[in-house]
């Protein structure tokens, strides 16, 4: 969609003969290269022999390619374990996030009940509260509940979010009410309307929410850092952050 809009804008703005070399390549190519170089450099470092990484002056390109770095990563560290932990955290976060936010978003968008506006206002108001403010009491709360140093500590904060509810509510509001009225006339109750009529229409919004949740729960660093000290329950991010010195790593997500 973005592409077509660009195209429309461009053709409307500046009619040019097709297939002429654009000067913008001279600007964009170096910038794109600058953005890619760090990744490329990392990949090369991960594939080069250990002694070349500490050679002076360092070579731009490794003399030979070796997978020793990756072998060492998976044999001498707990990388597999961290990946598993992170996967569990992210999967639980995504499933809970999508289910709970869809339910609540639908409730706030379409259902009439006492306290709805106050409830929604409270939820939206929490967006203003910075996470740094919540870390200390949440840590104390979790340690009282026995959640510290468990995987649950890492995923409980991601089970639902005000942003998710807001996103889903806005999407549900854009679905025509007639669709639901038709289902209701056919005798469906609220839950059936929600599960069989509304949710299938909301797949794009749920996918968006799932991607956002994946990115933020997978990449979260400060919260697991506080809540998890036991390296059995390290997430990938904690594992990477605790590498001492410049160990060769390559995965970047």
């Amino acid at each position: 969609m973005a592409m077509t809009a660009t195209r429309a804008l461009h053709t409307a703005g500046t009619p040019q003969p097709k297939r002429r070399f654009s000067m913008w390549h001279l600007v964009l190519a170096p910038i794109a290269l600058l953005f890619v170089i760090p990744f490329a450099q990392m990949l090369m470092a991960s594939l080069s022999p250990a002694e070349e990484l500490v050679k002076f002056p360092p070579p731009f390109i490794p003399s030979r390619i070796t997978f020793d770095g990756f072998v060492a990563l998976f044999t001498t560290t707990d990388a597999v374990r961290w990946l598993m932990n992170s996967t569990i955290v992210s999967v639980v976060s995504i499933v809970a996030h999508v289910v709970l936010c869809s339910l609540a978003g639908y409730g706030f968008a379409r259902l009439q009940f006492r306290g709805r506006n106050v409830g929604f206002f409270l939820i939206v108001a929490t967006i203003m509260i910075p996470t740094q403010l919540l870390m200390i009491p949440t840590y104390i709360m979790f340690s009282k509940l026995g959640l510290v140093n468990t995987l649950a500590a890492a995923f409980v904060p991601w089970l639902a979010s005000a942003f998710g509810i807001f996103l889903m509510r806005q999407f549900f509001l854009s679905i025509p009410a007639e669709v639901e009225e038709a289902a209701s006339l056919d005798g469906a109750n609220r839950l059936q309307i929600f599960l069989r009529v509304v949710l299938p229409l909301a797949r794009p919004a749920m996918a968006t929410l799932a991607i956002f949740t994946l990115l933020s729960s997978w990449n979260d660093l400060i919260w697991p850092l506080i809540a998890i000290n036991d390296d059995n329950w390290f997430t990938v991010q904690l594992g990477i952050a605790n590498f001492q010195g410049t160990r060769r790593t390559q995965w970047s997500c």
Partner: protein
Amino acid sequence: MATITETPRTRGAEAGGTPRGSSPDTRAGSRKRRGLGNLTGWAFVAPAMVIILGLSIFPAVWAFILSLQKWNGFAPPKFVGGNNYGKLLSDEEFWAAVSHTGLYVLLFVPASVLLGLFLAVALNRDIPLIGLYRTAIFVPFVASAAATGILSTYLFSPQFGLANNVLRSLGLPAQHWLEDPNQAMLVIAIMSLWGQAAFTTVIYLAALQDVPTDLLEAARIDGANRWQTFWRIVWPQLSPVTVFVTIWQVIGALQLFDLVYTTTRGGPLDATKTIVYYLWEKAFKALDFGGGSAAAYVLFAVTLVITIGMVLYARSRKLEAF
């Protein structure tokens, strides 16, 4: 679909609790239906609400109480009133953290807004390879702070890093980068820029595509060149987005922690110790929960004041932001 048609009509109308129900509308019946409607509504929103409020408003209030106490998590908490705030504001280390954070905001925010604008303008055209360019610029956005941190320490390693390697091969003097108190914050800002340029770019790209084409056409007919069209027509159209993006980036920059933790851990000589890093050390290294909470509230207040200030400034300049 099958289950919908199988469901008895009356049950559907009862449980639905909608005003569209077809059953006779007696007073008792409507009250019962409204009660059911309330119940259904709350059943939908309650699970998420309990989690969100339980993990935000409740701890936020608790944090305020904590900030008035002296507590290390073990001994019984002692009420000390505004003492934690007083100590915080007279702590030189805290003011150093404030100035480091301020430096980062000044380095990062204008650069990220301008770079985003520039990249969006550059990417907003239909030329071959544009998909490749866009991907190259967007991919770093998904890299985590931990990965970016490792990358930074490697690229900017004074001995073995690519940055110095390039400088050396150009015959320029090598720098100390993250190990130099005067350069460390600059390196962190550059790496955040690398990771987050995609954010401002995406927002500006979307905004550019909303600029009405008839405006551009009118400008062209009036004889404006591209440079004039951009600064006189497109840029003013983008101002609400600029205000939004600036505020958003300032809020994010004030909370810098991850990249500091994964690169310098506050060093060298505390030159990159930000407010959140200071807060984290105070609360979770020194176990001063009261002082940490006070620092968190001060950060919240500062963020709020700056945000409101920027919104008011935008209003006074007649820029619509919110």
